């Protein structure tokens, strides 16, 4: 069990009820778990708790049995806004985490190249961030996260600020990359379609109670196709769940 959320509660100072209430979840090594829910249901808060960017009011987050108390490279986050450093080039951005960790120069070069090729950006390595498109920025951010080879990679709606076409392409690539690397991923999204497309399991959060409403295992074989009847059916079922709870 790579990641365990144990009775996790979060209540903000100005609020009278828990944003998240007694969340229990286990994520296995190599598993791809998506968390969906209507906006305001606390998805991003959940991710921040796992990342260690916020502290839970109750309960705890365990990674390989150790309690999470602060942010760290074993739980790298890919954000909705790419969070790349504009004073560094694409390559330098990708190397950033390895540089902080004190990797040797050769290892930095080798890994940076490996992951930049994986996201098809090696030819753009010397570009400044402001000269590449939004989709390329997210790929750079993805490569940067992958270099950390974290125990779990956290993704906070990484494609939702992109146009639909780019977002669909990136999600295809993420599926391919996940099949290659088997990186453990906890992925937050408001798009049920995206969740069913990517995940082994979809966790539906309820906005009213702040609890887990349902966990759906997606057994469709990969690569998946959004127009397959089984896909559409499953998508509708989860959508009902998300909506039903939201009303």
């Amino acid at each position: 069990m790579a990641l365990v959320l144990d009775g996790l509660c979060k209540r903000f100072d100005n609020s009278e009820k828990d944003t998240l209430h007694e969340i229990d979840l286990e994520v296995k090594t190599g598993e791809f778990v998506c968390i969906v829910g209507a906006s305001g249901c606390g998805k991003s808060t959940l991710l921040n708790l796992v990342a260690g960017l916020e502290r839970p009011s109750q309960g705890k987050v365990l990674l390989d049995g150790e309690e999470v108390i602060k942010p760290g490279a074993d739980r790298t986050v890919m954000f909705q806004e790419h969070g790349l450093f504009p004073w560094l080039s694409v390559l330098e951005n990708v190397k950033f985490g390895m540089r902080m960790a004190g990797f040797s120069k050769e290892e930095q070069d080798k890994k940076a190249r490996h992951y930049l090729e994986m996201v098809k950006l090696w030819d753009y390595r010397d570009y400044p961030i402001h000269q590449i498109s939004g989709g390329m920025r997210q790929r750079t951010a993805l490569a940067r996260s992958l270099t950390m080879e974290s125990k779990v990679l956290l993704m906070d709606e990484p494609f939702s600020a992109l146009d639909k076409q780019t977002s669909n392409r990136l999600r295809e690539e993420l599926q391919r990359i996940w099949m290659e690397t088997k990186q453990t991923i906890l992925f937050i999204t408001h798009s049920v379609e995206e969740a069913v497309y990517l995940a082994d399991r979809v966790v539906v959060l309820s906005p009213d109670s702040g609890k887990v409403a349902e966990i759906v295992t997606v057994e469709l074989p990969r690569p998946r196709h959004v127009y397959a009847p089984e896909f559409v059916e499953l998508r509708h079922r989860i959508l009902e769940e998300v909506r039903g709870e939201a009303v």
Partner: protein
Amino acid sequence: MGFLLFLILLVAAWQGIYWLGVDILQLWKPYAMPSPLGVAESFLDLCQDGRLLEATGNSLLRGIGGYAIALVIGVLLGLLIHQSKYLQKNLKPLVLGIQTLPSVCWVPFSILWFGLTTQAILFVVVMGAAFSVAISVDNAIKNVQPIYTKAALTLGANKKQLYLYVILPACLPELVAGMKQGWSFAWRALMAGEVMTTSVGLGQTLIMGRDLADINQVMLVMLVIVLVGIIIDKCIFSVAERRILRKRGLTGGN
């Protein structure tokens, strides 16, 4: 090119007004009205005995020295304020208050402390610039986008690395803007200090012009003060600023 032409026209107009007002209509006394030719004459005079060069050199050295001290103090004070919630709440308003004090107001205090010495001038410069630098350091750090910090922390940066490799470069544009403003405060404060004291410098040469009732010398020194200020701003700060912004794609073209 257009600007040069404008300057030439301006000087020509100035000389024209002088002729009209002083020589032809005799509205003003010659000693009360500077003229371009008079300023040029004064320039040659002061250049010949090397006084202008010496004064400018002295002032620049003092300005740069005082500014350097102000930077060190300002950066440290800014970091200190940034580090502590308590100081943020209690000391920062005070610093902001002191910053509004015109630097010339430090002169009497400084003379009582140091006498009519170079230290007195430096003190005025430091007081004139340090607080503004401190405020802009604190603001610059505060304005760093939280996403950079979050990204760095989740990529494993420790606190020292966070400040060195993320916060410092992230706030560099604002920091340079703050340093630029600090310099302009320092340069003004320097003149405030120099006009009150007697050691050779631009401010003192300015006052000497007044004592000699030589309005052309007064005008000349004023022009030199403006010129030095502009040159430092354009050749150092603006160049640095533009280079940083361009690298990040924050300016269009040039």
